[in-house]
């Protein structure tokens, strides 16, 4: 099996797709958000450590609001095709799975708070199923029609 593609990390989870070079059979491995965060909290390198840890490495790279000039966590090279990909993917800052356009965001924010999160999740699930990465008013209208709202 060879690495085919990765999705994410989105919201702390990563999907890694492998494909058989002969029959094109594909399998996907997915990381568990809580487990990955737990292992990273130990201050260890997923994929193994090749170099000595930098001073205050975990502390400085884990701060949500660091002082200026603090380093990003460096990825670890690993022979394992899974942990190596996981290490590289989580070393970079996570990008949101969906780009919410301002007009679509405004429509979501106009929804009463007690059901807002549920509606947003429904819209994102619809966008995921239809391969949309950008959510604009047209997508919102599609969702509205599909759900009979």
């Amino acid at each position, binding site marked *: 099996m060879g690495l085919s593609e990765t999705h994410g*990390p989105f*919201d*702390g*989870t990563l999907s890694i797709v492998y494909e058989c070079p002969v029959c094109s059979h594909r399998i996907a491995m997915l990381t568990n*958000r*809580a487990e990955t*965060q*737990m*292992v*990273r*909290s*130990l*201050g*260890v*390198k*997923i*994929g*193994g*450590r090749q170099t*000595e*840890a*930098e*001073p*205050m*490495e*975990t*502390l*400085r*790279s*884990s*701060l*949500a*609001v*660091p*002082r*200026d000039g*603090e380093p990003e966590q460096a990825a670890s090279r*690993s*022979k*394992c095709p*899974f*942990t190596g990909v996981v290490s590289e993917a989580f070393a970079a800052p*996570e990008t949101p799975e969906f780009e919410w356009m301002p007009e679509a965001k405004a429509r979501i924010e106009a929804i009463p708070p007690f059901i807002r999160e549920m509606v947003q999740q429904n819209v994102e699930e619809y966008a995921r199923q239809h391969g949309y990465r950008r959510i604009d008013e047209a997508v919102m209208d599609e969702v509205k029609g599909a759900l009979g709202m």
Partner: protein
Amino acid sequence: MKTYHDIASDGGSRILEQVSAQQERLTARLSSVRRIVAIASGKGGVGKSTLTAMLAAALGQQSCRVGILDADLNGPSMAHMMGVRRHVPIPANGSVSPALAANDVAVMSMDMFLPADSTPLLWRAPSQQNAFTWRSMVEMSALRELLSDTDWGKLDVLLIDLPPGSDRIQNLADLLPDLSGVIIVTTPAAVAQMVVSRSITLATDVAGLAVIGLVENMTSFACPVCSHQQRLFPAAPDTRSLAEEHDLAYLGSIPFDSQLARQLDHGRCFVSTSPDSPASRAIFSVARSVHTRLNL
């Protein structure tokens, strides 16, 4: 036929080896520190940080080489109290230098890694929701690094200022099996002593730590004019009895002094600027007792 156990591994991450290397690094760093002492209480607001700062300064005046680690990651105050809030720890040669405060006390605090006084301690994560499941773990990693990656040099004693909560004593004992002991701080208030009593039991019976002694803080208020001392908690239980109940040494009592609080607010060393005040004399007395008990 292979079984699960034949193939199961952590994908080359060698997590256990990495954790073991972290512990070895910690042990190597602290090998040049003669005594490591935690300042704890269990109860918040009793003056642990104040005692830590002043005890360090007083021991420093007795020619001891002293370091302070501010283990209160979420409410760090030690860098401010010691007048080294502006220190920026720069990595070099595998470690970072601590700040040097009055009497050459080495100080390391989470404060020094945060950009502003108003910045709360938040850790990078996809979501802060359910952060309780991993937050304490990343904080223990940070605490380990503050200990192992600071170039303490040769110290006679490293004082660790613990945050409130009796569980912190147990966590530190797990991280530092060679902890020399704990100094417990209380006030004369009955509620404080109830919480402190539980912390003492946890430290001795559960964590198996040596308690160096009990310090009573805010015992009395010293008149700034005539130095007459008035008890702040007139009907309070006797702290000496609490020490006897747990078979602990009573290290002394420290009066409340508004000048002490004001000097710490400005990062000034009170025992140096007002060495003859009742509070300073009490702190020097506690320091002498600690010096003797730790055989410094």
